[in-house]
């Protein structure tokens, strides 16, 4: 409901009173009620309106004539209520307070209670506090602010990010390497190429070995495991070929006993 009060504090002077346009705020306290329509939105609230009434009247804030003030205040509030009811709640509260103060002042004071506070004291305190804040707000508003009255130096510079070398432990390195190797294995192609291995050549090798040793154990013949599977296969084929051609003899005494090779003796 305070939306209207807070949006703008400028007075809208495009209003007309008794057919004449209002060019400035009325100077006297007794504003024609019609003018209020234009006027009351400039107040920030009931305290602001009260302060205005007091100052316009040149009243002593410490000795407010409650009857006059309340009467005038009520005139405004009544008008305000007629125009915009939703605005009036805060103002009505103040009316109640003013009337309460006035009525307490009217009550005859029992002589024995002489130290009773002036019923206006609280109102005066609030009015003074509000006026203080009002002034503080003006002072703040007048202060230079960065962006409008203060221009801060802001030279351009090319940002060069200083790269801090990352810390790597030996373990990290090993983990990384393992990952690389594993990944690489997925991409390895299975290549089939023509093996340049000659069975004949291996047949000669076997014969040469057997000539040297006369008799060899089967496994001893294949002592070239590290040279790779293809060679082993060819070697084996060569051995079989030699046996087929009857150039070597393969013997075994009993199942699971060592297999021996030897050159066939020509009859």
């Amino acid at each position: 409901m305070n939306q209207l009060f807070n949006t703008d504090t400028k007075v809208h002077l495009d209003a007309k009173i008794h057919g004449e346009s209002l060019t400035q705020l009325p100077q006297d306290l007794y504003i024609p009620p019609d003018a209020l329509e234009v006027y009351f939105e400039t107040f920030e609230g009931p305290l602001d309106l009260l302060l205005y009434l007091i100052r316009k009247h040149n009243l002593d804030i410490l000795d407010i004539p409650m009857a006059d003030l309340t009467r005038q205040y009520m005139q405004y509030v009544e008008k305000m209520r007629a125009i915009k009811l939703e605005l009036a709640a805060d103002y009505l509260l103040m009316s109640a307070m003013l009337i309460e103060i006035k009525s307490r002042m009217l009550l005859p004071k029992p002589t024995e209670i002489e130290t009773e506070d002036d019923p206006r004291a609280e109102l005066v305190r609030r009015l003074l506090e509000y006026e203080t804040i009002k002034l503080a707000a003006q002072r703040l508003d007048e202060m230079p602010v960065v962006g409008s009255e203060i221009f801060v130096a802001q030279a351009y510079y090319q940002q060069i990010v200083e790269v801090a070398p990352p810390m790597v432990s030996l373990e990290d390195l090993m983990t990384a390497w393992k990952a690389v190797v594993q990944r690489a294995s997925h991409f390895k192609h299975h290549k089939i190429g023509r093996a340049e291995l000659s069975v004949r050549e291996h047949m000669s090798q076997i014969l040469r070995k057997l000539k040297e040793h006369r008799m060899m154990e089967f496994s001893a013949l294949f002592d070239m495991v590290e040279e790779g599977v293809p060679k082993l296969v060819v070697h084996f084929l060569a051995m079989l070929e030699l046996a087929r051609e009857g150039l070597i003899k393969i013997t075994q005494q009993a199942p699971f006993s060592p297999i021996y090779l030897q050159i066939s003796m020509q009859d």
Partner: protein
Amino acid sequence: MEAQNTTDMKMILEAALLTSPTPLSLDDMRRLFAERIERATLNMLLDELKVDWETNPQKCTMELVQVATGYRLQAKSQYLPFLARLSPEKPQRFSRAAMETLAIIAYRQPVTRGDIEQIRGVAVNPNIIRQLQERDWIDVVGQRDVPGRPSLYATTKHFLDDLSLRSLQELPPIEEFTQAELSRDIA
């Protein structure tokens, strides 16, 4: 890379102050020298730099000012009318209601919405609080330990920076005003 002498150090400080988008705190400035600088030395260099900018005709355009979060270089006031032409659209000023709300928070902090309403005599428009928070001028610093636990608002360091203040003590004094008014009214 390290500064060789105090002249070097002053130049480094100046470069940092010129390029920093926010005020530089003493801690920031010590980081410039990898913390290998005494606070006393730093303060001395800043004083020298301040005098340089004030007196050296080669660089008389800026002034070194201390605000809430540190030091910054800003244009001297005689250049403002010209600089203002570059941005003809002034940043929007806050409404009177917003300024009063801000003033209450600045001078009476920490305050709740209720405190603000008590002083202003009208309900607080939540938009105003939001506006001030978006500007990063106020924030919630806690809750008052009463039913409803209302938020307590206070002004930020950014607010002080924007108004070129080092602390809340430097706000325009208002206590004197009330006293002066009182005596005038009584007289």
